[in-house]
């Protein structure tokens, strides 16, 4: 992959205005697929959730999943969209083996929902309203695995294997209008927007919303134009960016790459680009071409969807609280300061902390674990903290063990690594590994005496009120007991000794 020339980010923003557009695909968590009764399930044996409809055997007739339609309407309503009184499906024709039909059943000129908006808050606290152009129903495609070729890249592949379990899974594609005015914060806005979409669909219960499983996927369009120019610049579309952090990075990268080209007078090629998480770069995919002539036409096998006013209003009445309202509520419930809360939101940890608090942890302890130690571990493993294999219940249990004095901070961190390694719950690990803190006075006093033998002046210092002198002894006791001493108890015992 050729290395792109990048312009300094601040300079790029001085020279150009950034315009972004986002397409978010949300996989619905219905029990069955969009047009057939096959199971909608992640991770099953390949080609076991398939039938004549979703592998396109001749004569098969699709039928629309009622729940998928209702979920789509709910998403539209949550985004403030109008719901089309008459919507229909269309065939998007293309030859690619990820769908067996040679077309994707989608919506084209009559999407189920249109003209909405979503207000998102950025890490800096600034608030933007993103205009939604449309949300339409379609089906997901199958999964291709490319085999052979020396580089492992598709260009060298000798053949491809197709699993159609995912083909026909209901998708809602949400498309924004061009988004202006975020300035230097365009990458953050892109990520914050997708985060809000995720919160909404999760809150609605219509999607599992796990980005790492591809339940929510984002294509990011980026174009630049000189400040003051009316006409939009040529855009690129970076496909399938699958974490919030990647979205931010990919948009930032495209801004810097395009700015460097434009500054040299080189035209931007309108093309699909691919984000490479490992390299932190995008690369050119195929250019927009004749192959994108999708020849949409109305799907003759499906009749129009005409949701009644009653249905729409009953779905509207069931909408959960808006993400912004929820944030205000939980911040008040948890008593977090604005800055603390902003860190939580930006780290995408609302759900985790809510789960942890609901499992019995104090809100501040939950916050401290998730934004502190767990975020640090995730960062060191180059992951999103939300991808860590740990539940809120486990974090709550850990916090409670610390509160009860059974673990000190150091031991708790150690236990955490074992939880992440899949050894079980914190309590199970403490029992299995014998990791409880030593607060047995006999053992502690012996260690204190040993430490005092080497530092005999400490007791005098404590008597004179210089408590900082105790630190050296506490440290020595800790070291002698390999970190498992109850530091608070050691301190108490030292003071008792000094005053004896």
């Amino acid at each position, binding site marked *: 992959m050729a290395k792109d020339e990048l312009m300094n980010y601040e300079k790029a923003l001085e020279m150009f205005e950034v315009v972004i557009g986002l397409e978010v695909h949300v996989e619905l968590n*219905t*029990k*069955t697929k969009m047009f*057939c*009764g*096959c*199971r909608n399930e992640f991770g099953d*044996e*390949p*080609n*076991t*959730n*398939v*039938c*004549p409809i979703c*592998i396109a*055997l001749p004569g098969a007739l699709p*039928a*629309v*999943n*009622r*729940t*998928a*339609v209702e979920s789509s309407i709910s998403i539209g309503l949550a985004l403030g969209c109008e719901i089309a009184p*008459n919507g*229909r499906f269309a065939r998007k*024709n293309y*030859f*690619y*083996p990820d769908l067996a039909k040679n077309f994707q059943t989608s919506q084209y000129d009559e999407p189920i929902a249109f003209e909405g908006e979503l207000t998102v808050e950025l890490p800096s606290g600034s608030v933007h309203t993103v205009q939604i152009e449309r949300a339409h129903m379609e089906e997901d495609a199958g999964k*291709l*695995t*490319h085999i*052979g*070729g020396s580089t492992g*890249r*598709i*260009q060298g*592949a*000798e*053949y*491809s*294997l*197709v*699993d*159609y379990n995912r083909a026909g899974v209901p998708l809602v594609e949400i498309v924004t209008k061009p988004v202006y005015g975020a300035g230097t914060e365009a990458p953050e806005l892109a990520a914050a927007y997708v985060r809000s979409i995720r919160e909404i669909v999760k809150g609605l219960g219509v999607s599992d919303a796990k980005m790492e499983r591809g339940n929510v996927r984002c294509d990011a369009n980026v174009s630049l134009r000189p400040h003051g120019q009316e006409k939009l610049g040529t855009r690129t579309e970076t496909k399938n960016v699958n974490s919030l952090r990647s979205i931010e990075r990919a948009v930032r990268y495209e801004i810097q790459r395009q700015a460097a080209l434009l500054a040299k007078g080189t035209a931007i090629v309108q093309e699909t680009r691919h984000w490479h998480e490992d390299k932190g770069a995008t690369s050119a*995919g*195929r250019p927009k071409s*004749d*192959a994108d*002539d999708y*020849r949409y036409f*109305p*799907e*003759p096998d499906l*009749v*129009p*969807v*005409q*949701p009644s006013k009653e249905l729409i209003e009953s779905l509207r009445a069931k909408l959960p609280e808006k993400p912004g309202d929820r944030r205000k509520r939980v911040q008040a419930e948890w008593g977090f300061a604005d800055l603390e809360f902003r860190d939580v939101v930006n780290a995408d940890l609302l759900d985790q902390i809510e789960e942890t608090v609901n499992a019995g942890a104090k809100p501040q302890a939950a916050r401290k674990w998730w934004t502190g130690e767990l975020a640090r571990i995730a960062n060191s493993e180059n992951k999103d903290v939300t991808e860590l294999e740990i539940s809120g219940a486990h974090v709550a249990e850990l916090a409670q063990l610390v509160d009860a004095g059974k673990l000190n901070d150091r031991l708790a961190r150690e236990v955490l690594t074992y939880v992440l390694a899949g050894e079980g719950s914190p309590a199970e690990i403490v029992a299995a590994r014998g990791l409880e803190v030593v607060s047995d006075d006999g053992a502690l006093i012996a260690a204190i005496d040993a430490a005092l033998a080497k530092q005999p002046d400490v007791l005098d210092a404590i008597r004179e009120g210089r408590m900082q002198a105790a630190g050296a002894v506490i440290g020595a006791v800790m070291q002698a007991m390999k970190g498992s001493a109850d530091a608070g108890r050691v301190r108490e015992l030292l003071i008792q000794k000094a005053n004896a």
Partner: protein
Amino acid sequence: MSEITPDLVRHLAGLSRILVTDEEVERFTEQLSLIVDSVAKVNEALAGVDVPATSHPIPMANVFREDIVEPSLTQAEALSGAPDSGEGRFRVAAILDEE
């Protein structure tokens, strides 16, 4: 007259993954022109008449299936008609243009 040109026929053939000879391009250009012109007559007949476009001949809407799991094919059944398969999956020619 319609706008069907030999180049358009080649383009359509490409989109449809159909190999056409020059002789066929010529023949299809004529035939497709005839079809498009014939259909255009419907528009002439309807000029000035307010008829909404329709995508379905029968006036019906809202035909839904409940979200209930129905039996799928087995993997062996699913793959039984495949020209080639491997590892429980359909095996197809290498894909050359994506990612």
